């Protein structure tokens, strides 16, 4: 009897919990699903030619017990080395954490019952994203750095308003959150692409959304995530800060959240088209973004505080950005919304200047402080899209930041700073004016682990500054 997709999705969630008790983490579970879903999908969409004979869904499904588990292991190994590019991308270095044949059977049976076409529209994609989110919140996995909270993504997409026909890029794609949200936005505006011509639809499915991801494990999750949302465009496995990044097609829209942290062991990007060489990864990504936009293209990028105040190359890059692009809005995000507590981040919204206009594009920058005097988000106070309501209203409906805006003055959250104001501050964009008066309501206290993380973050900042101080001192004596 055919179950509805909803039932199957519920089953898969349930299985997830059962397997968790057996020690299977969210990360491992979502990876298992990736492999199995790919095989099933290939069958359903008549795309099994990319898989070597004997290593396809029916081969797996028809086996039983220990045989099935052993075959599964062999299949993963085999497909990781033979098959089309797409197959290799999914199965490279794939291993299974399943130890009990019964569990594999449950998974295979549940997926076998999936009606692929309705599954995609009826929640399979959501399930997948839901698992990714759970994965991200498991601190030990460190997977949080590849996952941007959905409310933040949705808000950024809502403000930037990607349109059908535009090239949308994420050079630090992670698990594909931004690209999927942008696709969702376009579909909602075009009656699920029905209002477009066939050619335009093809563009949306095959070309519009593209990006790069560095880490293999994450890359395969991104591929599957996109596939489940009917996006066939390529995500390259590689390093945007290498020559690969130079070859990316210029974009109409760039939405991204580059990974936090410094490049391990220092080191400069290996591409050499950057004007400003620095080992600070976020500053490098920023350079990539404003250089890789088409003239008139727009971007929204999540960056930590140090990008706003780092001196030397940081200041140079900020000046370059404000020359080549109109940095119209900065949103200071609350702490506590990312996996890494205490990390202070911002969203920079900017528009690349028109062709041949690469000086003086920024006349003024509006800054919205959503950091001071906010509730502590975390397990006890959910972080939802609601939190952005005031900001979105203040930002206005123009995706280029040109709506009429109101400066709320020193007591308010939204203020305008002219280019001269910023220059007078040494081109330091780390601007705050609200006093943080948040008293500690015991009901509002974050979890101990979250505060511990914030303490660590402060110590880390102190260490970073002291190390830099030391280097500056040594540079002379």
């Amino acid at each position, binding site marked *: 009897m055919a179950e509805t997709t909803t039932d199957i999705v519920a089953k898969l969630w349930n299985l997830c919990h059962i397997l968790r008790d057996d020690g299977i983490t969210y990360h491992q579970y979502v990876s298992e699903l990736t492999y199995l879903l790919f095989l099933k999908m290939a069958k359903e969409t008549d795309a099994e030619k990319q898989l070597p004979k004997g290593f396809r869904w029916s081969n797996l499904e028809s086996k039983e017990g220990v045989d099935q588990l052993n075959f599964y292991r062999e299949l993963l190994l085999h497909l990781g080395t033979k098959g089309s590019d797409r197959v290799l991308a999914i199965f490279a270095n794939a291993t299974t954490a399943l130890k009990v044949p019964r569990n594999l059977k449950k998974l295979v049976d549940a997926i076998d019952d999936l009606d692929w076409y309705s599954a995609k529209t009826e929640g399979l994609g959501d399930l997948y994203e839901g698992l990714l989110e759970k994965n991200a919140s498991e601190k030990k996995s460190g997977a949080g750095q590849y996952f941007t909270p959905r409310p933040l993504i949705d808000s950024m997409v809502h403000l930037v308003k990607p349109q059908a026909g535009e090239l949308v890029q994420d050079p630090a794609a992670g698990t594909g959150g931004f690209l999927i949200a942008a696709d969702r936005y376009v579909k909602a505006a075009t009656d699920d692409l029905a209002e477009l011509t066939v050619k335009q639809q093809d563009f949306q499915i095959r070309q519009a959304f593209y990006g790069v991801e560095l880490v293999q494990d994450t890359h395969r999750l991104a591929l599957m995530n996109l596939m489940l949302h009917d996006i066939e465009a390529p995500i390259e496995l590689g390093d945007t800060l290498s020559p690969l990044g130079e070859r990316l097609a210029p974009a109409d829209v760039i939405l991204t959240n580059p990974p936090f942290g410094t490049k391990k062991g220092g080191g400069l990007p290996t591409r050499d088209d950057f004007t400003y060489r620095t080992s600070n990864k976020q500053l490098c990504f920023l350079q990539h973004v404003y250089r890789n936009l088409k003239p008139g293209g727009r971007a929204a990028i999540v960056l930590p505080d140090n990008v706003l105040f780092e001196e030397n190359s940081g200041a140079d890059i900020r000046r370059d950005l404000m020359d080549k692009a109109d940095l119209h809005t900065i949103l200071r995000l609350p702490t506590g919304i990312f996996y890494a507590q205490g990390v202070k981040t911002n969203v920079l919204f900017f528009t690349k200047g028109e062709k041949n206009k690469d000086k003086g594009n920024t006349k003024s920058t509006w800054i919205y402080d959503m950091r001071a005097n906010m509730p502590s988000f975390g397990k006890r106070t959910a972080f939802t899209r609601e939190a952005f309501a005031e900001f979105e209203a203040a930002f206005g409906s123009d995706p280029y930041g040109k709506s009429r805006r109101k400066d709320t003055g020193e007591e308010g959250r939204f203020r305008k700073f002219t280019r001269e104001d910023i220059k007078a501050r040494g081109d330091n964009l780390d601007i705050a004016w609200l006093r943080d008066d948040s008293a500690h309501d*015991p009901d509002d206290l974050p979890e101990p682990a979250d505060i511990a993380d914030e303490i660590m973050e402060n110590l880390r900042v*102190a260490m970073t500054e002291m190390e830099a101080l030391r280097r500056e001192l040594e540079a002379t*004596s």
Partner: protein
Amino acid sequence: MTQELPKGWISAPLGEVAACDWGNTTLTKAAYVSNGFIAFSASGPDGFLPNYEQDCEGVVLSAIGARCGKCFLATGKWSAIKNTITIVPDGIPAVIAGFLFRYLNREDLWPKRGGGQPFIGLGDVRTLLAPIPPPKEQRRIVAKLEALNERSRRAKAALDAVPPLVEKFKQSVLAAAFRGDLTADWRAKLQGSEGRQSASIREPYIHEIDAPATWTQSSIGELCEIQGGSQPPKSTFIQKPRDGYVRLIQIRDYKSDKYATYIPRELARRFCTSTDIMIGRYGPPIFQILRGLAGAYNVALMKAVPNEARIEAEFLYYYLQHPQLRLFVEAGSQRTAGQDGVRKEELYSYPIFLPPKEEQTLIVQRIESMLHRHEEIKSTAEGARGAMAVLDRAILAKAFRGELVEQDPNDEPASVLLERIRAEREKANGKTSEKRAARRAQSKRGSKQVRGEAT
């Protein structure tokens, strides 16, 4: 200055490289207006005046009072009022103000005169020897110091944030402990899933507390007895230990031994040991939970004696530190304008959800291991913070020994510049006294001052 100066540097009295003079002694803070040009007093740039007397960069020295020796960098259009000395590089400046400011802004640099009201004499300022590098090198030094300062400032700010965060952490740990979060895994192994229960507290601080369903609802009064303190008349107090006397413990003794007080043994009524749980009855801050001293205790303290058959002493010790309970007690005491301090009956009525003894012990263990580590982190951060202050001073010292930036042999040495200044001054010397008199007359009327030269 006895150490050797780097090549190109020269040591010169301040009076030779800058115009040193008293600030305008006729201006006081009474002349301040709400908007205008910045004005410096001995406390710093703390007001505005309708006119300005200086239109250049300079250093303002606090010359009289508690903060004498502190310097401020003045730029743009400004004035200095009574009790200050202005040090303004003049003519062809041999020193840039920013460099001078960083050199001079050290309170231990200045010879201070006077007793009750310390001051710095103008003569001392003019004769103070300063190391003068070539001007180009001065700029490099200032730029370097600014960069280092930024880093140092951010490191210090990050470190300063740590102790309050550790406090917050402690509160969060306690809240989590008494919600049952810290031992959720332990209970899960024993009993699988569990429900919750809660109690609502009304006046004077409305809130809810919740706990696992398996814990027993009780109240503080059922689980411990609060015993007040006692003290004899003040006339019997002495400050040094003596035979036949015992320590009388007061709240402030938990912070410092400076106020140790002793009373005759036979007049002492209420005693505590160093492991007893003590409560500060009055504040601020009210309801401190204290431990660690032995002796007789006074009426500002109360002892909480646990019913050890039901509640572990350590568990009670931490429960009493629950942030919600403190707010509850505070709210209660505020109603009587703090006169009564902690109200015993109200405290007795406050609910406790009590876990089984074994779980109490486990909770205490987990609280302590988390807090212990974080106390260490706090000390480390405070230590690092102190070290940063020392580092800042060391960097300055290095700068003024010429070791912070490289010397450039192409820089024109400072001595050459000084010679030129001396020559200029000798030329202008004849006109100086006239100019000074004219300047004084003008400034009395509060109008713009002509920059003159020091003698």
